[in-house]
């Protein structure tokens, strides 16, 4: 694929634009999407370390990491979808949907929990596929399509659970085959020094690393940025836009299944009404981490930092002895501040 012989344009003078200066390393670092979130995370960490006494203890940090991880796994998938230019409002209830499905399928059909989990995975991926397919084929904004699936799924969660178990929660499955191994994979913990690390923290890091690699080092990643940045241009140069978008929705479905399995193996019974509203937490984490709502810009690392900021604030307020009723106010204020700061950061760095 060389053109050396072909294009004899070498003799034409290279025009150097003297108005364009090379960016230095520091500046390049500063305009990374997650930079603002990183500064924010450090600031919040220092703040709570000072004002909230137990914040800096090993047990607290373990708890914060755990809280961040369950949000972070989903935030990772939601961020990648957002980079691809779409939204998924049904992601919160999709988590509950997966764990309900796995639990009830295994319980009522007397299956090994792993088979229940596998069936639930098929369902979760199908929901993702359907979301993606409808968005791509109808060209209706994903906000509306997934708003529809949000309410449909939460209706299914409540109605089917009541229909099958006669209650709003599923039956206990802790005595069924596959429980122990499932718990080891999705809900165990181990010690590192005085830290009690939940396994979801490891999975959270794994999700973030894999997503980062895919986004920046593979052609699929290139395509994700392209379909989010300008879908028509991407199509014109041969990017399979439809497949990429449907794949992204299915990835969110996969992450929802993963967190759903954690819920199931960690709490044994699943409340059918939970999960509603969590989709906003994932979106907040992604946006705080520097993802643009309009697509084509952001990182998985940013979403992880966003989730960590969420975890720190959620627990930090408690450790500081403040009334936790204020948490949501802080969350909203932080989102606004993060969006403004990210914007200012980007503009400032781009102008220098």
């Amino acid at each position, binding site marked *: 694929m*060389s053109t050396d012989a072909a294009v*004899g344009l070498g003799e034409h003078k*290279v025009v150097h634009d003297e108005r364009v*200066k090379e960016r230095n390393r520091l500046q390049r670092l500063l305009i990374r999407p997650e930079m603002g979130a990183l500064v924010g995370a450090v600031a919040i960490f220092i703040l709570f370390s000072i004002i909230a006494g137990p914040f800096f203890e090993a047990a607290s940090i373990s708890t914060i990491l755990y809280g961040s991880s369950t949000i972070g796994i989903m935030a990772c998938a939601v961020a990648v979808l957002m980079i691809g230019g779409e939204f998924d409002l049904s992601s919160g209830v999709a988590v509950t949907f997966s764990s309900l499905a796995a639990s009830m399928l295994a319980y009522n059909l007397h299956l090994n929990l792993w088979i229940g989990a596998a069936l639930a995975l098929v369902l979760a991926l199908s929901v993702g596929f359907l979301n993606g397919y409808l968005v791509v084929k109808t060209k209706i904004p994903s906000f509306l399509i997934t708003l529809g699936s949000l309410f449909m799924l939460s209706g299914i969660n409540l109605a089917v659970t009541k229909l099958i178990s006669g209650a709003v929660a599923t039956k206990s499955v802790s005595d069924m085959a596959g429980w122990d191994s499932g718990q080891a994979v999705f809900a165990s913990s181990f010690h590192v020094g005085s830290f009690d690390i939940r396994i979801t923290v490891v999975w959270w890091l794994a999700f973030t690393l894999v997503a980062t690699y895919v986004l920046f*080092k593979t052609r699929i990643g290139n395509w994700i*940025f*392209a379909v989010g940045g300008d879908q028509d241009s991407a199509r014109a140069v041969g990017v399979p836009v439809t497949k990429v978008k449907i794949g992204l929705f299915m990835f969110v479905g996969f992450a929802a299944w993963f967190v759903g399995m954690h819920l199931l193996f960690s709490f044994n019974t699943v409340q059918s009404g939970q999960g509603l509203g969590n989709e906003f937490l994932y979106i907040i984490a992604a946006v705080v981490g520097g993802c643009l709502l309009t697509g*084509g810009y952001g990182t998985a690392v940013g979403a992880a930092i966003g989730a960590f900021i969420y975890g720190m604030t959620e627990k930090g307020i408690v450790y500081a002895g403040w009334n936790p009723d204020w948490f949501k106010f802080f969350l909203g204020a932080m989102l606004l501040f993060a969006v403004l700061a990210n914007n200012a950061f980007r503009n400032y760095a781009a102008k220098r």
Partner: protein
Amino acid sequence: MTATVERPEHDAPSGGKVPLVELKHVGKSYGNIAALQDICLRVHAGEVTGILGDNGAGKSTLIKIISGLHQQTEGELLVDGEPTRFASPAEALEKGIATVYQNLAVVPLMPVWRNFFLGQELRKKSFPFSLDANGMRATTLTELAKMGIDLPDVDVPIGSLSGGQRQCVAIARAVFFGARVLILDEPTAALGVKQSGVVLKYVTAAKEAGFGVVFITHNPHHAHMVGDHFVLLNRGKQKLDCTYDDITLEHLTQEMAGGDELEALSHELRGNK
């Protein structure tokens, strides 16, 4: 990518040689509307064919036929002398016919090098076959330098480049990925004087390198500066078909502006004063 860019065999503006692309009495109707009628056109290697026309003259329809987006309803399209029908732009691309559209098909937020290789990314030869980012950066730099654009940093988002530079990146991309015939859809329409100059210089460079260039514009000045051959469209019909030697800029401008119609209009507006 199997196609490689090779210098087309006939460099000189050719008389009697087989044109890269030829249209014979091509027409296109959309239902009962005849958008194009009886168009004859030849694109030779090493020549710029300027297609001029006002809005609605049928320029876009003509490009769409050559680039494989639409099929003609009458007449023949010949590539290298062989009658051809393109089912899709991909087939036209395989034959080396690349179109640079007005929107350029670039993703503004992505770095220049990622845009350059979008859809045709280079990957490393060994596991895990990740993107060969450095290779792509280097290629982008050299390809852009060849066309006279010096970017200190191909990692900047392409949206931060000037219009002319973006246009040149899009052309360089088409050339690099195997084009022999370049269809440029109004490349100077949105550009200032200096930026247009950059693009026009590159059009000449591409012509000298042996590419067949189809240059669509409604600016007769730009067309006359680089064109070897002019085709003027008006309301779907071919009004003028001549070479550079046959026509002066004044005449071309006059024809483009509507010729007799313009005189009549001028008379109507100013005649009584």
